[in-house]
């Protein structure tokens, strides 16, 4: 900010402040990484560096652990050795001792979360680009009402709508089946992302000179073609950013997932499954932290890819956060 050189003392103060701020921001992440790599006996050790590197938590979550030795009591073993018993019965007996309670189906939850987030991102970005183009460029009845309405809607938090949306889904009958529940959840994620996507894209489309479309239309393109061939390709970076933004909103969502998916364990998303895992069992810090790291990773990668445009896109609209 200032042209003049800093004195040494000023430099020391500046760097101390910067380092403290950065540490404050990254310390929890270091803590998570460190604990995910520590053996349970090492948890009480305040140092961030594990005494021994312990990768079991990651291995278990990623399904790389060798199957556990089945511990069968002698009496049951005698039964199993009995040749008169059918193979089917033996398997049933064995299953009793190899219950899957202990295994946290991380891969499945990851896939569930990824699927719904991905679909939400694609559909929301597509619908929003159509609507944002119309609001930014075309003239039609009730246009400014819609533009302002979108802004209003985007500030009404999900908490205020959870009861009516749940009751609507019950009344229509969607809440009674797994597929209907997932559809409800997908629609809810759409409305949570559409307004902000429309807002970000609308602002971006306005920065593209109108003369480009005009020239295309002079050359015989229709309005729709001009949008498709000129505006969309020019907006690729912003479309990608908006997609990432929508993806991450869905990836993080807990409230509605907990309301709708409670009884459908197979379809739960990561936030819900992790919270359930955490509250239902004790002393599993390593697994919880490893799961946190793995949940974090895709988001960090996404944001590194989108960061350049995102910072601008976020500040332009004073986006949700």
């Amino acid at each position, binding site marked *: 900010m200032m042209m003049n050189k800093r004195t040494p003392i000023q430099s020391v103060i500046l760097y101390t402040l910067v380092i403290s701020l950065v540490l404050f921001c990254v310390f929890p992440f270091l803590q998570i990484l460190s604990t995910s790599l520590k053996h349970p006996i090492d948890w009480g050790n305040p140092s961030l560096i594990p005494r021994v590197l312990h990768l079991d938590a990651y291995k278990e979550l990623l399904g790389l652990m060798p199957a556990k030795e089945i511990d069968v009591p002698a009496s049951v073993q005698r039964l199993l050795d009995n040749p008169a018993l059918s193979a089917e019965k033996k398997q049933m007996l064995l299953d009793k001792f190899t219950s899957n309670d202990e295994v946290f189906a991380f891969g499945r939850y990851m896939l569930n979360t990824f699927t719904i987030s991905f679909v939400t991102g694609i559909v929301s970005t597509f619908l929003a680009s159509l*609507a944002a183009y*119309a*609001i930014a460029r075309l003239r039609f009845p009730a246009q400014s009402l*819609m533009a302002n309405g979108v802004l209003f809607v985007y*500030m009404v938090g999900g908490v205020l709508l959870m009861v*009516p949306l749940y009751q609507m889904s019950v009344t229509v009958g969607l809440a009674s089946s797994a597929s209907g529940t997932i559809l409800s959840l997908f629609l809810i994620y759409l409305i949570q992302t559409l307004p902000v996507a429309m807002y970000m894209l609308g602002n971006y489309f306005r920065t593209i000179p109108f003369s480009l479309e005009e020239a295309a239309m002079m050359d015989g393109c229709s309005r729709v073609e001009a949008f498709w061939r000129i505006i969309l390709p020019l907006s690729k970076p912003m479309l990608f950013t908006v997609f990432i933004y929508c993806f991450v909103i869905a990836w*993080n969502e807990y*409230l509605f997932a907990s309301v709708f998916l409670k009884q459908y364990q197979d379809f739960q998303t990561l936030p819900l499954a992790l919270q359930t895992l955490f509250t239902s069992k004790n002393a599993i810090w390593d697994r919880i932290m490893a799961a946190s790291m793995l949940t974090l990773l895709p988001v960090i990668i996404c944001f590194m890819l989108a960061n350049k445009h995102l910072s601008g896109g976020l500040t332009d609209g*004073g986006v949700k*956060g």
Partner: protein
Amino acid sequence: MASSILIKNEARLGLKLVAPAIGIIGLLVIYPIFFNVYLSFFDVQLNGSKTFIGLDNYSDLLANPRYYHSIGVSIIYLLGTVIGTTVLGLAAAVLMNQEFHFRNIARGLILLPYFAPVISVVFGWQFIFDPVNGIYNHVVVDVLHLTDTRENLIGNPDSALFVVILFDIWKHFPIAYLLLLAKLQSVPKDLYEAAAIDGQNAWGRFWHVTLPELKFVIATVVLLRIIWNLNRFEDVYLLAPNVETLPIFTYYQAFAGIVDQGGAAAISVIQLLVLVGLIWLYVRKVLKW
């Protein structure tokens, strides 16, 4: 007239393009807002059965001490987080606007908390404050000897509120920082030079140049934080479900224990009215769309 046909065509295309998005928003946001008001006059069960009870939900709510308690908690939460994020955001913006080595890396790193999913950081924070293994208790008890007993800060709702506020500041100051830094970079340098010639020291320049230039953005940040944090659910509930801010109280009313969906609808109606006032202020004073 050819031009009127063009105008009509443009209007038709415009309506076609906005129809899907506006349709979904109308059906799943606007309609539920009114349906919510309707539900607030009924005794509503989870399975959808409703009995009309007039204003009973409202009178029950206004006689419920838990409601007032959660309003109190929400006010403390809002005060703490809004002041905290704004002040830290401003400090970070001024700091990151200086020239120093590795500035770009530092700028990237301080955005991490904002980008990280809530679910993947809350457990890290719980571990930090864990009574047995956490670094907080290690430092307070074993290193600084401030107390003899290890406290479960998150287990106790009163202290958990402050952990939640600290967590929220950590998580959301980067957005305040981004908004403020963007404005700070556009403040003309000659203003600072003029102030320096007038004999202002660094503090005086901050007070007489930076702050007046940022006034408008700071107001935006404050208003936006109030609007978002009034409805914030995940960040509070996942870190400390015992801290009953309004959204969490609503959630418990609607889906936990003795389910009272009508009562929850009534809370939402009142909260929505407050929110609409704030949004109106924001749109009037701050935004041009």
